[in-house]
């Protein structure tokens, strides 16, 4: 079994942002499409604020759960500097979809380290294909900051080896017990995420 039949998706961000939940929904979608799936993450000590990555691999048969650097087809970054941190995991023709949030940790506020001036610009300069957008503003415009997670899933929906409808069905299922209104809000967020990436690509191809 060679690994090129496997889809590698890396979701990254900060503890508390919803990285693991997003990866979980993507894993469910891949599973309903009949793929073998493995999802692994390292979320270190404490509840919040640290680096979180989730590795998602699916295909006919997945062996190692860990993604190797240089093999990621799609990187879904919940934060600019975090996307940069893991950008060496991208394949040369891989695609990074990055929420351009800038979450500055206390060690930077204390003046011990610098936050990169332009993380996605740095990624582009290194030759990566990057689409960046502001998921939190999109969510806020829809009236609920918590929709940011679904905006992120919308952003990746057109870059999966299955239909966006499959992913949307998994999101619907997750929010079904919260009522029709919540489902509809998430559908809007999903569509807005898709549109944001499409718009970016139309104006400035990654």
């Amino acid at each position, binding site marked *: 079994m060679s690994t090129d039949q496997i889809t590698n998706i890396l979701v990254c961000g900060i503890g508390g942002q919803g990285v693991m939940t997003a990866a979980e929904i993507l894993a469910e979608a891949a599973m309903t499409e009949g793929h073998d*799936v493995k999802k692994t993450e390292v979320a270190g000590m404490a509840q919040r604020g*640290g680096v979180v990555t989730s590795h998602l691999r699916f295909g006919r048969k997945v*062996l190692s759960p860990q993604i190797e650097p240089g093999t990621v087809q799609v990187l879904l970054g919940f934060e600019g500097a975090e996307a940069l941190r893991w950008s060496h995991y991208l394949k040369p023709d891989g695609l990074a979809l990055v929420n351009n949030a800038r979450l*500055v940790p*206390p060690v930077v*506020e204390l003046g011990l380290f610098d936050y990169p001036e332009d993380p996605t610009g740095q990624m582009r300069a290194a030759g990566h294909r990057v689409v960046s957008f502001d998921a939190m503003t999109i969510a806020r415009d829809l009236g609920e900051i918590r929709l940011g997670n679904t905006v992120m899933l919308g952003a990746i929906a057109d870059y999966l080896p299955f239909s966006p409808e499959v992913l949307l069905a998994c999101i619907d299922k997750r929010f079904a017990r919260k009522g029709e209104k919540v489902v509809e809000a998430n559908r809007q967020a999903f569509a807005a995420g898709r549109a944001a990436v499409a718009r970016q690509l139309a104006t400035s191809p990654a």
Partner: protein
Amino acid sequence: MAAVMPQLAPPVAASRLLLSGNEAVARAVWESGVRVAAAYPGTPATEIIESVARYPDLYAEWSVNEKVSMEVALGASMTGARAFCAMKHVGLNVASDCLMTMTITGAYGGLVIAVADDVGMSSSQNEQDSRFWGRFAHIPVLEPADSQEAYEMTKFAFSLSEQHETPVLLRLTTRICHVKGLVVVGEREAHEPAGFVKNPQRWVMVPAHAKARIPGLFQRDETLRAVSDASPLNVVEAGTDRSVGFVASGPAYMHVKEAFPDAPVLKLGFSHPWPPEKMRALAAMCDKLVVVEETEKLLETEIKAAGIACHGKDVLPSIGELSPQVLTPAVDRLLGKPVPPPAPAAAPPKVFPRPPTLCASCPHMGMYYTLSQIKNIIVTGDIGCYTLGAGHPWNALDTTICMGATMGVALGSDKGRGSVDKNKRILAVIGDSTFMHMGMQGLLDITYNHGNITILLLDNNTTGMTGGQATPASGRDIHGREAPKVDLFKIVEALGVPNERIKVVDPYELPVLFKTVREEIKIEGPSVIIARRPCVLIDEFKPFRPYLVEEDKCTGCGNCVEVGCPAIHVTHRDKVIKPSGKEVELAFVTIDSQACTGCGLCVQPCAPDAIQHVPRRDIPIHIVKTTSSS
């Protein structure tokens, strides 16, 4: 009161579920008809019992520590019930006193211990290899390589345990526990306990009885070696490229298959005792043999001792996780193949570190800010979220060793110090859950032996670092239901601390904290300051009205930044020359009012009163609903 966890309606047999290794073990525990399951929380094993507790028809508990959890499981097994306990690697150190004698009595009802090694140390104070316990305690070790195997081997472990009357060690690692994969599940089987049978020669471990049973351990090893050779959990995969063959277990097997799909492999699921015949068969079919094991050189040493030539740690690292990326160049070098240098794009970009932080409004911040302002002290620490107090900006903890060690280390420092440290005050920090796990004995040692220590008991009403599990002092059980609530004040008093030397303080009140700590460290003898506020991640925490910075008032002094709250951000920096000629760095700040939950810790060191409540109309909706004060 926290919400009661709903019980799961277990999915029907033959369902294909996406389960983590921890969830898969839990499902198998339930299906195996287990009656009693016990654990103390510990990464990466915590979710095993959390999941078990959501199944019906069994008893599950948060035990106060791992040793007790194992004793609870043993007691259940003695009645013929199937029993289970789960722990992280360092938890098994704590439980090992029970283990080393329990192996002599053996199990009656099936008895399985799941132990999870934190290979790569994502959330532990050390990295250790629990496979050693199998050798030390003469018990079989099973090592699943993914969620499906975790499920299947757990079920097998119970029958193996009953058949050979032995506890069975199910060895997991982070890459099993926290990896989700597909699992096909089955039904629960009924397992009625056969009943306790009075048998002092077996259950009363006095020298005469133990002596009579110990030869049985060695006999059991031999029996199990044959079982291992016949076991379908140990498979020789012939492969097509015989230049190098591999021995691997657990996640290492997956890495081998990924990196060398055509090589012969002995996949060990039943890894101790390992199968000698299958090992020889593998060795005979390949030119070179490489033992691929995460962390210690354990199998390799034993295989060599059996007279089989092999490689292992001569080419592979002994520290941290393995991966195909580590294996491929190492084995290529061994085979004399050219190893290409890594492509330049593969170099990780340089980005600032982002260590985990205390949460906005975390009550620990108040204590650590206080400690960071007091000079001439030694502060011993312990295991929990509050270990982060050793980091920036507080740098307030001087030691961390193991659960409960803060007490003994503090007492030893007190007794051992010479003239250099004579004028220092010694403080010991511990959390509520760690205190009940293993800190109480240490405190007793301090009071009994006239220790001159000020103990800071950080009571946040939960086991914080592992995700907010209930404790005996939280008034909740593992299901979130009401439980007897022990009184930490009374425990501390009963352990010998004079009533007037026990202070209960609010860690959000900095002046009170400063005053209390300064007073207590001056007094000879032991004292305990209980700093009480709920963890911000549990239901008991109610957010307050958030704050903002009135930018025209901020003088850039940076005092609030020293509190260490992640909701405070620096907008710009400046430098001024004081009349004395001294250059001072200024940091002007803002508060992220979405993240701020209004504890007010940053307000107190702000001299110009630049930090004010946000106007009521701007309070986030989720806080308006719950704000009861300020």
